[in-house]
C-alpha cells in the first residue's frame, strides 16, 4: 500500500499542491476574498479538496508560522464510510476512500461526521472530496499534490518507507507523527489542532458512535479543539501569546 508523507517542517505554504489539485482534477476556482489571512479558501468546499492552513503563534515572544496541507486523510476507519446510508462510500484497493457517483444522493451525512470536515455536497447533490488522484495512484503515479511539491514536504511511497521516514524525521526535529494508519501521514512540530488538523465533526451527535480513526496514532475527535470551518488563528491581531495553547513544549526565542 502507498502512503503520502506530509512533512510540515519542510512546507513553505507555496500552495502549489492546492492549485495542482484543481488543475489535475479540473475543479473550478472559488471566488474568495482576502479577510486578513493568507489562508484561502477558509474551509473545504465541493470544488476545493486540498488546502493549506496558515497558523501564526507567538512562542516565547517570537513569532512562528506553521503550515499544513490538508485534504481527505483517507482514514483507516472512515466515519464517512460507516455512516453513509446509501453505501456509496467505499475503500479502493489502494486504501483510498472513494465515493460512488451513482449511489451518492448528496444527503451530506458524511460531511457531518467527518472529523476533518472534508466531504462537501455539490449543487449536483454529490459528495465531493479528494479521491487520492485515483487515476494517477492506481497507475503507480503520485497524486498531483505530491508531484508538484517543490520543497520536498510531500513524499509518495510504500507504507513501510513512509512510516519509517516519518518516524525518523520526527525524531530528528523533535516532532510527532500523526495519522500513521491513514494514507496521509504527518510530521508535526505542534499539536495537530494548532495546524487545524482534525477539527472534529461538524455535527458530532450524528455519528454512529466512534467514527474517528481507530489506529494507534489516531486521536479521538473529541480531543481536538472544535473550531468552526472558518476558524482562523492566522494573522490575528488578538493572537497575543499562544504559549499555553496545545500544551507543547515551547522553545526559547533565541533558541
Amino acid at each position, binding site marked *: 500500500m502507498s502512503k503520502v508523507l506530509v512533512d510540515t517542517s519542510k512546507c*513553505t505554504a507555496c500552495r502549489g499542491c492546492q492549485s495542482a489539485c484543481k488543475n489535475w482534477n479540473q475543479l473550478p476556482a472559488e471566488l474568495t476574498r482576502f479577510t*486578513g489571512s493568507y489562508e484561502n479558501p477558509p474551509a473545504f468546499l465541493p470544488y476545493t479538496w486540498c488546502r493549506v492552513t496558515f497558523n501564526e503563534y507567538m512562542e516565547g515572544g517570537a513569532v512562528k508560522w506553521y503550515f499544513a496541507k490538508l485534504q481527505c486523510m483517507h482514514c483507516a476507519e472512515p466515519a464517512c464510510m460507516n455512516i453513509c446510508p446509501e453505501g456509496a462510500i467505499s475503500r479502493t484497493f489502494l486504501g483510498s476512500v472513494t465515493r460512488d457517483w451513482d449511489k451518492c444522493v448528496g444527503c451530506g451525512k458524511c460531511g457531518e461526521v467527518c472529523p476533518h470536515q472534508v466531504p462537501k455536497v455539490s449543487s449536483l447533490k454529490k459528495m465531493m472530496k479528494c479521491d487520492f488522484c485515483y487515476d494517477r495512484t492506481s497507475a503507480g503515479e503520485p497524486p498531483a499534490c505530491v508531484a508538484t511539491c517543490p520543497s520536498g514536504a510531500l513524499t509518495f511511497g510504500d507504507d513501510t518507507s513512509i512510516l519509517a521516514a516519518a518516524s525518523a524525521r520526527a525524531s530528528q526535529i523533535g516532532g510527532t507523527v500523526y495519522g500513521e494508519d491513514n494514507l496521509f501521514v504527518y510530521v508535526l512540530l505542534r499539536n495537530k489542532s494548532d495546524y487545524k488538523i482534525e477539527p472534529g465533526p461538524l455535527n458530532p451527535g450524528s455519528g454512529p458512535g466512534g467514527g474517528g480513526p481507530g489506529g494507534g496514532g489516531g486521536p479521538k475527535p473529541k480531543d481536538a479543539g472544535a473550531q468552526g470551518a472558518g476558524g482562523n488563528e492566522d494573522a490575528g*491581531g488578538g493572537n497575543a501569546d499562544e504559549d499555553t495553547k496545545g500544551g507543547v513544549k515551547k522553545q526559547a526565542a533565541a533558541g
Partner: protein
Amino acid sequence: MTNHWIDYKNSDVIMCIGLNTAENHPISMKWINRAREDNGCTFIVVDPRFTRTAALADIYAPVRPGTDIAFIGGIIKYVLDNNLYNEAYVANYTNASYLVDPGYDFDPDTGFFSSWDGAKYTKSSWVYQKDGSGNVIKDPTLTDPNCVFQLLKDHYARYTPAMVSTVTGCPQDTFLEVAQTFASTGTVGKAGGISYAMGITQHTYGSQNCRILCVLQLLLGNMGIPGGGVNAQRGEANVQGSTDMGMLFHLLPGYVGMPQQGSHATLQDYVDKEVTPLAPSYWMNKDKFLISMLKAWFGDYATADNEFCYQYIPKLDGTNRSHMAIIEKMHAGEVKGAFAWGQNFAVGGPKAGREREALDKLDWLVAIDIFETETAAFWKRPGVNPSSINTEVFLLPAANSYEKEGTIANSGRWIQWRYQAVEPPGQAKSDLWIADELFKRIRGLYASEGGAFPDPILEMNWDYGTGEPDIAQVAAEINGYDIASGSLFTSFGSLKNDGTTACGCWIYCGYYESWGNPACKRRDFTTDPGGTGLFPSWAFAWPLNRRIIYNRCSCDPAGNPWNPDLWIVRWNGSSWETRDVPDFGAGTTAPSVTAQAPFIMLGPERQGRLFAAGMAEGPFPEHYEPKESPVSNALNNLQNNPCLVVWGSDFAAVGDPNYPYICSTYRVSEHWQSGIMTRNCPWLNELMPNMFVEISTTLASAKCISNGDMVEVSTVRGAITAIACVTNRLQPLNGVEVIGMPWHWGYAGMSQGPSANMLTAHVGDANTSIPEYKAFLANIRKVG
C-alpha cells in the same frame, strides 16, 4: 549566481538576506531543506518581515528596510575582530595585501570618501600604490596601515554590535547569533552561502549592498567553493538570459561594455581603453568578443577596413537611459513612441502614476504580451477620459513560453532548451516571429524610402527563413561559428579579432555547439561526479559549462581542496583533477601559478576585490539611509548616498510627521510580477484574491485598525486603499513601524486592485539606476 541551485545542498550555513526565497523562488527550498536535513545546515533569514521563508529559518533576524550594509558590515567587523577569516585565502586570493594611495580616506564626520569634488568622486585617491615599474606594491603581512586589509578593518570599526542594533533594529543578541553562526564558515572546510534578491538590489545603494556580501564571502573563503558563493536569485524565469543578452542600456551581449561617445570614438580607442588595460585578466580578449559579435551582426559588411562596422553601434553620450530616465523623457515629450514588450510598467514601474501619465504623451505605443496589460490599457485606466488621449496603441498578442521554442537561462547560469508544447491561440505569435517580421518590414521601408542612417539596418546580417523563423539558426549565431567553414564553436577560446569568427554572445559559446544534440538540450540527471551536485551533462552553464565560477578558490594555494570530501578541482602532485570545468589554466600548470589568478575575469588584479574603485560611491560599502527615511544616519553624517540618481523633488523629509512609517513592497508566491499572467488565472486568484497591506499589531492598535479592515496607505506621491492584514509577523524595529505590501495588482485582468507602485518614487541606485522600491515613507489610516 556564482554557484547554482543544487549546490545549496552543500552548505553548512545558508543566509538569505533581502530574499524571500520560499515564496518567490519555491524550488530553492528543495535544496535548502536537503542541506538542513542531510548536513545539519543552519538556515538564517534576514528580513524586515517574518515571511514564509522565515517560517523555516533556524535563525530569523529582523532588520529595518535599507540597513543591510550596517548589518553585514557588523558581521565583517565581528569576523575581523575575532580572527575568523580564512587567512590564507584572504592573503592569496584577494587584494587585501595591496597598498592604497595614502590620500585615500573616509570621513565619518562628513560621510564622504576622499576625492569628492562637490558633485562626484574623481577617485584620484582610490588607487593602488605602484612601484617604479608600474607594479602594485603589496604587503603580504597585511599589516601596513595603507593596505586594503587594514583599511577594511578601519572602515568597519564603527560597525559595532550596538551600532548595528541601533541602525537595523535587530536585537543585539540576535545579530551576534547570526554573526557567530555565519562566521563559523570561515573555518577551513566549512561552506557558507549567501543568497539575495531584490531586497538587496532595489535601494539607492543596491550595488553596494551586493558588494558587501562579496566582501564578507571573500573574508570567509566562501567564494568559488561548493556550498558557498554570492547567489543572486533572479526574479523572473529568464531575467538571467535577458541580462546575458545585453538588455541593460550600458551593456552589449555578454557583458561587453557599450562604447562611450568621445572616449571610444574608434574601435582602436575602445581596445586601448577598455581591453588592453584589463590584461592579464581574461577580459584582455574582449576585442575578440566584440569583433566576433560585429561579424555575427553585419556579416560580410564588417571588415577590418571599416572597423568591423563598429560605428554602427550606438555610443553612450553620458545620458542615463535606464527605465526611470526613459519614462521621464517620455513624460517630457522627448520620447515619441515606445514598445512595451513583455513589460508592464504601468504596474511594475516605480511612481506608477507618473509612468501612466507618460504614456499619455506618446504618439504611439506597441504593447506585446499574452494579455492586455495595464500598460496596454493605460488609455482607459480609471480616472482618465480616453477621448483626451491621442496615443495610438497597437496590441500584439504574443505566444507564451509553452507555445514557442527556445532557451531560458536560470539563476545558476544554466541555459536550457524548452520545446513548444502547443500552438499559440488565435493570432498570437512568438516573440521571434514578431521581431523577425518587424525587422524585415522596417528594412523594406528603409530600402524603398531611405531614411536617416539606414546602413546598420540595410547591412544587418539577418536571414532566418520565412514564416516562423528558424530558431536553430538564431541559436547557432549566438553560439558562434567559424565563418569560412561554418562549423560551430565549443569554446570562446576559438574567437578571434581578425574577422574570421562570428559569435552573438561570447559567454554562450558552446551551448549550441552541434546541430544534432546541442549542449543546452542535454538531460543527463544521473552523472554527478562525487555526489557534488554538479550534474555537468544536464544542459549547459555559461561560461564553458562551468557550474561554480572562481573554482580555483576551492583549493588552497598548493592545490589541496579546503574540503577534501567535496572537491571539484584538485592538484594531484603532477596535474589537476577536475570535476567542474576549471576557472583557471589547469592541466599541468603548477598550483603556485594558478593561485596568482583565482579571479581571472577581474582585471587587472585577477584577485577578489575587498577594495573596489569601480563603484560610484566608494571603494568600501558604507551605510547611507534610503532616500526617504524616518531616522538620521547614525553611522556617518551624510544622510543619503551622494551619488544616487533622482528625478523630481516629491520626497518626505526625515522626521516628517505626516509620513512616519517605512513602507516596503514585495511579491507573494501566488502572483508573479505585475500579475498579468497570474491575475488572469482563477485558481491563483482564489488563493490570493485581493491587494492587502501588512502591519504589526502595535501599529494596528495605534491606528484602531482591525484585521480585515480597509485602510489607506499614503505617501507624498499618492495613496491607495487595500485590506489590512494585522500580524505579529511585522514588528516595530527600534520603534519604527514597517508597512508591507505586494505590488501585483492593477486595473486590468480578472483580479483587479490598487497598485503599490502608485506610492514609490523615481530614485535609484548610483551604479545601476535600479529604483528604490524597498524603502520609502508612508502613513496609514483606517477608511472602512
